[in-house]
């Protein structure tokens, strides 16, 4: 038995983030309650900033497999890590915002108190703050970083659990409408457990097929043409379902609307962007690296799922009258659009100069989607009625006229999500659909374009409501603190930059799109 080796240099960002989380646990125990929120917030931001710096510095280091073949630190990993840490910082800022709700965070004062009980009232009266969310955020983010880098099925499963469990807890922590929040968390947990079970079962079957959890061995097994195709297909189906659940693809999407609505808005923003990023990163690695040889099997299945996802997200989104729920359905539709690029399964370098492959298509789309979505959720936290968030369409009437700057920025986010040119969303759709088209799925691209027109219908409906309907006097647009504005402005500027000068980012993504086994 050889002693394990660990490449500390390659996985330094992971260690920093985990170290930050551990320190945060100590902070919980040692720092006085009154100062804890600020310390936790600062610690989380600093830990992520250091990790982000390390990732950026690591771009020039030769890719390599680390921790005894458990993690693969290659180009796609670095892309996902960079994006995850950027958006993780954004979510952290939203977590730390206390000005919008009159000096309290968006989280329950004491999570263990029964909603409506005297203990809860006491906790609120004592102005207690839940600071454990920062620990949970860092732990979940750590899982998200490991997930797309995992190079074998077991690491992948463990990462899936690490990223999921804190999420379940965070979903239950809303300060207002706590029952809804707790119900959402329970649903998410139950369905998440089911999908984890499916993934684990699939992993076992793939082990049965190839005799190894290593992606490279599974790929070798497929290439060699091992007889037991049933095991391969069942394993492929079940592991994919496990990841597709996290992505929110139809028919594994049922949790998305309920959980997005019930969870505190900063958590929703974190889930909508970061979970999706990590899950797509993991899906790409699973399908391209481990199961690339069986692409004729999964391409068709994913195409069908993509169609279902796009149609469901777009059509049901039309009937929504609540902004938070609308964003939930829109995130389902976006998952479908991104799957188009995955289905294409084109490697960038195989296409020649100037064309981007599936990996950079997916990543660019996610970058544009993440900027607009996180920004939109940040705006969402500012529209309030008697203290709580007002998410109904009626509350948003006339917002663009009352708050021209905020209205214009929100319109920009919506235009980007609708895929209007000169925004990041447009370029993202373009590169994603081109990847699907190049992969021979022209019909799928046609469906995607039609469905993006349908989604434009509900985004424009919100724009219309914001500008042409009479304002509701009972709704306040509260003053937000710096953290929220940083998220909004970075989102707006990023959306424009990705739309106006996508070249350098696309080049970077395309040049780093090669997987390492």
């Amino acid at each position, binding site marked *: 038995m050889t002693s394990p080796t660990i490449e500390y240099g390659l996985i330094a960002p992971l260690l920093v983030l985990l170290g930050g989380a551990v320190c945060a646990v100590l902070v919980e125990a040692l720092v006085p309650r009154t100062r804890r929120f600020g310390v936790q917030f600062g610690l989380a931001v600093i830990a992520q900033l250091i990790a982000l710096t390390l990732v950026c510095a690591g771009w020039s280091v030769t890719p390599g497999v680390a921790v005894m073949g458990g993690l693969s630190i290659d180009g796609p990993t670095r892309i996902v890590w960079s994006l995850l840490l950027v958006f993780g910082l954004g979510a952290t800022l939203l977590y730390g915002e206390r000005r919008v709700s009159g000096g309290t965070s968006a989280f329950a004062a004491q999570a263990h108190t029964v909603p409506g009980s005297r203990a809860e009232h006491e906790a609120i009266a004592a102005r207690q703050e839940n600071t454990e969310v920062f620990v949970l955020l860092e732990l979940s983010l750590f899982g998200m970083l490991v997930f797309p880098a995992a190079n074998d099925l077991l690491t992948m499963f463990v990462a899936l659990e690490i990223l999921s469990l804190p999420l379940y807890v965070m979903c239950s922590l809303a300060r207002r409408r706590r029952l809804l929040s707790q119900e959402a968390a*329970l*649903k998410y947990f*139950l*369905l998440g457990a*089911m*999908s984890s079970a*499916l993934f684990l079962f699939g992993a076992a079957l793939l082990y049965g097929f190839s005799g190894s959890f290593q992606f490279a061995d599974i790929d070798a097994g497929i290439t060699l043409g091992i007889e037991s195709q049933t095991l391969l*297909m*069942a394993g*492929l*189906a*079940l592991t*994919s*379902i496990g990841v597709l*659940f996290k992505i929110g693809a*139809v*028919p*594994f999407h*049922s*949790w998305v*609307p*309920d959980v997005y609505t019930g969870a505190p808005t900063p958590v929703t923003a974190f889930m909508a962007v970061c979970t999706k990023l990590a899950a797509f990163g993991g899906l790409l690695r699973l399908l391209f690296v481990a199961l690339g040889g069986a692409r*004729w*099997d*999964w391409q*068709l*299945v994913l195409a*069908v*799922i993509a169609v279902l996802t796009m149609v*469901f997200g777009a*059509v*049901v989104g*039309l*009937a929504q009258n609540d902004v938070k729920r609308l964003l939930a359905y829109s995130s389902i539709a976006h998952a479908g659009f991104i799957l188009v690029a995955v289905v294409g399964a084109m490697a960038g370098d195989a296409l*020649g*100069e*100037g*064309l981007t492959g599936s990996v950079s298509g997916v990543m660019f789309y996610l970058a544009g989607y993440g900027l607009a979505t996180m920004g939109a959720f940040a705006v969402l936290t500012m529209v309030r009625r008697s203290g709580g968030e007002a998410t109904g369409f009626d509350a948003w009437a006339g917002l663009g006229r009352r708050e021209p700057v905020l209205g214009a920025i929100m319109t920009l986010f919506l235009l980007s999500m609708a895929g209007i040119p000169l925004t990041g969303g447009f370029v993202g759709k373009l590169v994603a659909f081109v990847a699907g088209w190049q992969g021979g799925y022209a019909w799928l691209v046609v469906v995607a374009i039609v469905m993006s027109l349908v989604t434009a219908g509900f985004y424009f409906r919100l724009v219309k409501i914001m500008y042409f309907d009479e304002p509701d006097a009972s709704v306040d647009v509260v003053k937000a603190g710096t953290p929220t504005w940083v998220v909004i402005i970075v989102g707006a500027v990023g959306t424009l930059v990705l739309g*106006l*000068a*996508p*070249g350098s980012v696309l080049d970077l993504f395309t040049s780093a799109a090669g997987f390492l086994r």
Partner: protein
Amino acid sequence: MTLLETLTPVAATGSLSIAWLLIAIPLAVAGILLVVGRAGDAWGHLLGAAAPVAAFVIALVEFVELLGAPPAERAVSVPVYTWAETADRTIEISLLVDPLSILFALLVTGVGSLIFIYSIGYMVEDPKRRRFFAFLNIFLGAMLTLVLADNYIMLFIGWEGVGLASYLLIGFWQERTSAALAAKKAFLTNKVGDLGLLCASFAMFALFGSVSFADVNAAAPDMSHGWATALGLLLLLAACGKSAQVPLQVWLLDAMEGPTPVSALIHAATMVTAGVYLVVRSQAIFTLSDEAALAVAVVGLCSIFAGAWIGCAKDDIKKVLAGSTMSQIGYMMLAAGLGPAGVAFAIFHLLTHGMFKANMFLGAGAVMHGMGDDTDMRHFGALAKGMPWVFGTFAMGYLAIIGCPFFAGYYSKDHIINAAFGRGPVFGWLAIVGAAITAFYMTRLMMMTFFGPSRHLPGVHPHRPGPVMVIPLVILAIGSIIGGLVLNGWIQGWLSDAIGAEVEPVHIFETSAIAWITLLAVACGIVLGVLIYRRPIAQETPVSRNFFVNAGRNELYANAFNEAVFMRPGQRLCDGLELTDRYVVDGAVNGGVTLAKGASGLLRLLQNGYVRTYGALMTCGAVIVGAVMILGRLA
């Protein structure tokens, strides 16, 4: 034979690389003026008038730099912004500064500066003066985009921009129904022409895979004769719309509803000549198709006479000048349709016309200003004494437009007539007749406005304009006098240095038979005008039975024709479509929406909030995934 604009542009250096500022400054100023709101009322006009001056200085510096450059390096490409870069296609925005576009830039910013300054005085009492200057700057930015574009799409953006600015400015006094309607009419008529430009751009992209001037010119010789004719006619349609040439001339007279500086800048000196610019820019296409070039020349001739006819009949001083603009642009079109022999003269006439027509329009504005905004010449008379400075400067414009020897128009028009004889005697003779009529109606205008007894309406006391209006008039008058002399010997060389074509010799005073005949014809026109309009003139327009007079007064019945042929059938078509829309299309759409909403409602049933349903759905999903996989294997 090498042609205009077949030079491959070289990369920009030095001051040329800041050419984008020409466009950016006016647009930025327009943005500032519109955004600051009333806070800028006190200084908005000054900032607004500073923009063209700054742009003019930049244009002048670049012009000097081009003068110093060797002829082969006078076409300069100025990259501004790369939007997307891929292996087989780069989408890039860049400007083209070459001998042609820099002349235009100088004209637009130079004449523009004077007119902007004049407007400070002209609009002094208007509460919306700041907005007026914002719109003027939008126009300036768009016009410079148009002339500095290096491809047809960017040209089109500028083309639409000037159309928008023209719309905003014609309808500037939107509280007047007539102004609002005139603006709408100009916009709609222009759209017909814009269709031609769009279709031409699409066709070029399909044929050559590019819409940049350099690529189109390089690839043009390989295209079929039919395509060349089609492209030429489409571009001509566009030019007709923007330059108010027959048959899309109807909007120009109504456009005089706008403030007079607008008429001077946009509807006389610069925007309306954009059509000529387009035809000259696209010479590579027109030389390939004789038919298209002939069509240009014929349109030019028709417009010469249509404009002159209207100019003879109208009593409104601005409309007479508008008719004369149409007619003079007709000369430019004629020249542009004569092929390489005429192109340089088209631009020459365009430049001199820009000066003397702006001069006269501003003069007319000064007259109106002094006469209580009256434009009817039957109420003028005897103003030579009342407004000596205006009269003096206007007279210089008059002498220039009729082609009095040594004045600006003399040289440019004479060259065009000469070149027209080169195409065929019919063209030449008609051009001479046109010159005679021009002399007649301009003499009529002078007689009715400045000479004879006073016919002023009671209560009107002509007052003299202030220096801020007179100084631009004087500068433009000087341009009207010496502009021709200065440019005469030089412009052919400037435009052809780059092209290596032969320069025809020119003289200070032409002594050929054609030149003498032209002078004689002009003299006849003047004498006839003086003799007729020396007689007393009624204050009211007398009823006439003469067909020619009535046709001229009614703008050749073009409006009636358009109403009968396009508007009424169009309205009926709309009515029919509306019914179809209401009962057939709406029915289908509403049905579709109901269907989608129904589907949406059904799908929402699945979203019932019960985890057990969700779990079941996931299980079903897993089964579906398995089934699709198995089906995929079987297929």
